[in-house]
C-alpha cells in the first residue's frame, strides 16, 4: 500500500521559494536593470558637471522627498501585513491593509503633483538644465510605476473585499505585493541619489 513519505507543505511558511508567480520576478529583474542603468547614467552625467548638479539639487524640496519615502515604506509595510493576514487565514483583514497601501500610493502621487507644480511655478522644467532633465525623467518614470502599482493594488483590494485571499489562495496577492515592493525599492535608491547625494 503506498504511503506518503513527505509531509504536506505548511501553507504558513515562506520556505525556499519566491513569493507569487515566478514570472513577476523576471519582470522585476528587468525593471531593476533598467532603473539601475538610469541611476548609474545619472551619476556619470553628474560627474561631468558637479557644480551644476549640486546647485540645482538645492532647489529640490527634501522634506517632500522624505514624506514620499515614508509613504512608500509604510505602504510596503501595509502590503506585507495584507499578505500575512491572508497566510493566517484572516481574509477580512486583507482589504483594510491594501486600502491603506492604496491611500499611501495616492498620497505619493499628490506630493509629486505639488512638487512639480511648485517647480513649474518657479519657471523650472525638464529643459532647464541637465540635472532637471534627469530629475523630471527619472521621477516621472518612477511615478508611472507607482500609478501602475496602485492600480494593481486596487484590483487586489476588490478581490480581497470578496474574501478572495486566504492561505490556500494567495499567489495573486503575493505577485502584486512583490511588484509593489520593487516600486518601493526603486524610490529608496532614487530619493537619496537625486535629492541628497552631493
Amino acid at each position, binding site marked *: 500500500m503506498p504511503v506518503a513519505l513527505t509531509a504536506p507543505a505548511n501553507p504558513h511558511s515562506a520556505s525556499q521559494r519566491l513569493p507569487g508567480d515566478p514570472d513577476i520576478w523576471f519582470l522585476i529583474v528587468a525593471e531593476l536593470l533598467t532603473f539601475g542603468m538610469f541611476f548609474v547614467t545619472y551619476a556619470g552625467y553628474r560627474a561631468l558637471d558637479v557644480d551644476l548638479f549640486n546647485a540645482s539639487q538645492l532647489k529640490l524640496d527634501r522634506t517632500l522627498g522624505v514624506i514620499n519615502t515614508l509613504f512608500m515604506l*509604510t505602504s510596503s509595510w501595509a502590503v506585507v501585513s495584507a499578505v500575512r493576514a491572508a497566510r493566517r487565514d484572516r481574509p477580512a483583514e486583507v482589504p483594510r491593509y491594501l486600502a491603506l497601501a492604496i491611500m499611501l500610493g495616492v498620497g505619493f502621487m499628490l506630493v509629486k503633483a505639488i512638487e512639480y507644480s511648485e517647480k513649474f511655478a518657479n519657471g523650472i522644467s525638464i529643459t532647464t538644465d541637465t540635472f532637471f532633465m534627469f530629475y523630471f525623467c527619472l521621477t516621472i518614470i518612477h511615478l508611472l510605476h507607482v500609478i501602475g502599482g496602485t492600480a494593481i493594488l486596487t484590483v487586489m483590494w476588490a478581490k480581497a473585499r470578496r474574501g478572495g485571499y486566504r492561505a490556500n489562495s494567495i499567489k495573486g496577492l503575493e505577485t502584486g505585493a512583490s511588484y509593489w515592493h520593487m516600486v518601493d525599492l526603486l524610490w529608496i535608491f532614487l530619493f537619496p541619489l537625486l535629492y*541628497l547625494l*552631493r
Partner: protein
Amino acid sequence: MPVFLLNPHRTWLLLVLATAATFWVRADGVVGLAAGAATLGIAWLKGRLVILDFMELREAPRLWRGIIEGWLLLVTVLVFVFYRFGPELLAQTT
C-alpha cells in the same frame, strides 16, 4: 517580545530610522565625501532590508536572492565610483 520588534514592524522601524539618518546627514546641504559615502551606504542598507524582509528573499532560492542583492550592490558601487572618481575619470575622455 514587544510587537514593534517583530517583523515586518521591526523592518519598517529600521527603515524609518535609516531615512531620518540620511536626512540628518544631509540636512545642511554641505558637499562632502564622507556624507556622500554615508548617504549611499544607508541607501544600500535600506534597499537590503526591503529585499530581504519585505520581498522575503531572505528565504528565497539563493540564486534569486543573489541576483537582486547583487544588483543593489553593483548599482551602489558604480554610483559611488562615479561620485568619487567620476570627474577625474571622465575629464580624461572628454
